[in-house]
């Protein structure tokens, strides 16, 4: 290139001409990656892709400072952004991440909420004990805790035989859709979700819901105990109830955590603290949803198939042991992947 022709071209044009090949190479590599064929790149190509990415970023900085060719600046912005997304994209695979959730994250998050879980458990027990006392002294209290449409005949007016039948017969569902409702979005699943969701109101509705849930439990138990069906109802309730009540308590604990953090954010700003608490609580809540699924499966299959009281007790204790060991077995925190 003669001196004259060099002077003829703008500096920015020469800058562009010198680097254009690198940009085009990066663009071609990116096009292949974006078609989803990461494995088609050789190791050398992957290395050169990151090198070209850094070179392009530096071209972008230079172009912004010295070039008024808008086409180049906009092209480099778009190219750098695409390459940036590849270089700093997600690296963990779907299954390995899922495995880590079950192996480490979920149990650790549950352990981290042990104080809130204890409080939620105590509130539930408090409600249950209070309602049990009230109903066993005056059965009319039963209606105060359990709405008539939910009781579906299981109330103090029912005969002993009818109550016994309700523990062993298959429940009477009108349609399949109401079955779905009963399985997954039944009353307890709702309480769990709302106990979590309403934690944002400083946890007050969460406490009320947990208390109310305890009351329903207490009233229900009292009804059967006063009819001499105590042993049987515990088996009927806890074959899936261990899982379901644990899910409600954990969801309540997650709600309490968010509410408590919103009320007392500590040294951090309220938004930051709530965000951090939200991430932790959401982890627990995802787990609680999974537990509710298990509870639904236990309720629909195990309870209708297993009608022996001792077998029901065995399943209940087994689930209690499994969940307890799974959540609270001491384990070390793994390095973040």
């Amino acid at each position: 290139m003669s001196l004259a022709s060099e002077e003829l071209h703008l500096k920015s044009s020469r800058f562009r001409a010198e680097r254009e090949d690198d940009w085009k190479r990066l663009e071609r590599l990116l096009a292949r990656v974006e078609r989803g064929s990461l494995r088609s790149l050789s190791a050398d190509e992957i290395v050169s892709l990151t090198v070209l990415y850094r070179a392009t970023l530096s071209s972008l900085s230079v172009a912004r400072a010295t070039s008024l060719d808008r086409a180049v600046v906009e092209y480099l912005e778009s190219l750098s952004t695409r390459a940036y997304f590849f270089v700093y994209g997600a690296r963990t695979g779907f299954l390995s991440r899922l495995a880590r959730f079950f192996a480490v994250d979920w149990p650790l998050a549950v352990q981290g909420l042990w104080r809130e879980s204890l409080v939620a458990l105590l509130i539930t027990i408090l409600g249950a004990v209070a309602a049990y006392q009230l109903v066993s002294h005056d059965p009319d209290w039963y209606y105060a805790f359990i709405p008539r449409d939910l009781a579906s005949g299981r109330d103090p007016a029912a005969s002993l035989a009818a109550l016994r039948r309700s523990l062993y017969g298959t429940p009477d569902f009108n349609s399949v859709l109401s079955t779905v409702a009963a399985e997954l979005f039944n009353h307890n699943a709702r309480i769990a979700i709302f106990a979590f969701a309403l934690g944002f109101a400083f946890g007050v509705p969460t406490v009320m819901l947990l208390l109310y849930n305890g009351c329903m439990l207490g009233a229900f138990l009292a009804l059967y105990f006063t009819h001499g069906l105590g042993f049987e109802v515990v088996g009927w309730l806890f074959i899936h109830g261990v899982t379901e009540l644990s899910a409600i308590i954990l969801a309540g604990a997650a709600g309490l955590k968010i509410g408590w953090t919103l009320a007392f954010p500590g040294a951090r700003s309220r938004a930051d603290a709530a965000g951090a608490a939200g991430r932790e609580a959401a982890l627990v809540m995802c787990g609680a949803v999974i537990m509710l699924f298990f509870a639904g499966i236990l309720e629909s299959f195990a309870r209708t198939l297993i009608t022996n009281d001792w077998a029901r007790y065995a399943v209940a204790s087994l689930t209690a042991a499994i969940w307890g060991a799974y959540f609270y077995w001491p384990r070390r925190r793994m390095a973040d992947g």
Partner: protein
Amino acid sequence: MAEGLRIREMITPEGVDLRIQIGDAGERLAAFLIDFCIFAVSLFVLQLIFVFSVVGSHDRDGKQAIATVFVLILFLVRNIYFIAFELTPRAATPGKRMLGLRVAARDGGRLTADAIFARNFLRELELFLPLGLVVASGFSKGAAEAWMNVAALVWSGIFLFFPLFNRDRLRAGDLVAGTWVVKTPKRRLLADLAESGVGLTSAYRFTQAQVDAYGVHELHVLEDVLRTRDRSTMAAVASRIRIKIQWALVPGETDPDFLAAYYAALRGRLEQRLLFGKRKKDKFDVG
């Protein structure tokens, strides 16, 4: 400049601002609806099997089992759909791809799998679970539960409109996961206009004062005019520039040639001044 409002600073770990454009609420909604249709249609066969097996089955326990399994599959499919697609190098579901959107980490760092899981599971809590409650209880006849339905609708309503009430159009899931949804426009490298202009500098010679008449803003307007190559616009712009710089016509002068030559000369002058730290914004900038 409606576009300028959606440009956000995003600093890469190398310290360069990528000036990213966020996806607007309409595009987000459209992407979601496309995704929703895709998995609704792809599950259509499964839904048919579900309906027929339920209708065909007279056994109550059997129906119950089928219903449970179906809802479980629905839950798994929609979550795996979103998460698995966002974990690919393109970090976007088919709906987002169609609208040129993708998920990115808000702090400019690596987009982690955790963040993708978090933002998608929160969608479950924001939208599907509360709406599921409403749908499910629509079939049970409990007046006592009406208030819970209202609460569920208000709850998902708040989250549905949540992106409209923050400037980065974040969903609650984005807020928690530290992500946002951005545009990824693909641009081709357009030809360098100065290259065609510099060849003409022997025919068109501009004085110092003539190339100092305009600034960067006018240069970019001129660039647009030259790229569009609309004859009447070029004639109008050329005549205005000739008047402004008091240009004497050269023999055989044409509007495109004049504009290309002036573009090259103006850009050369402005870039030269840029190297000395002076960016002349527009023609009013005389400092």
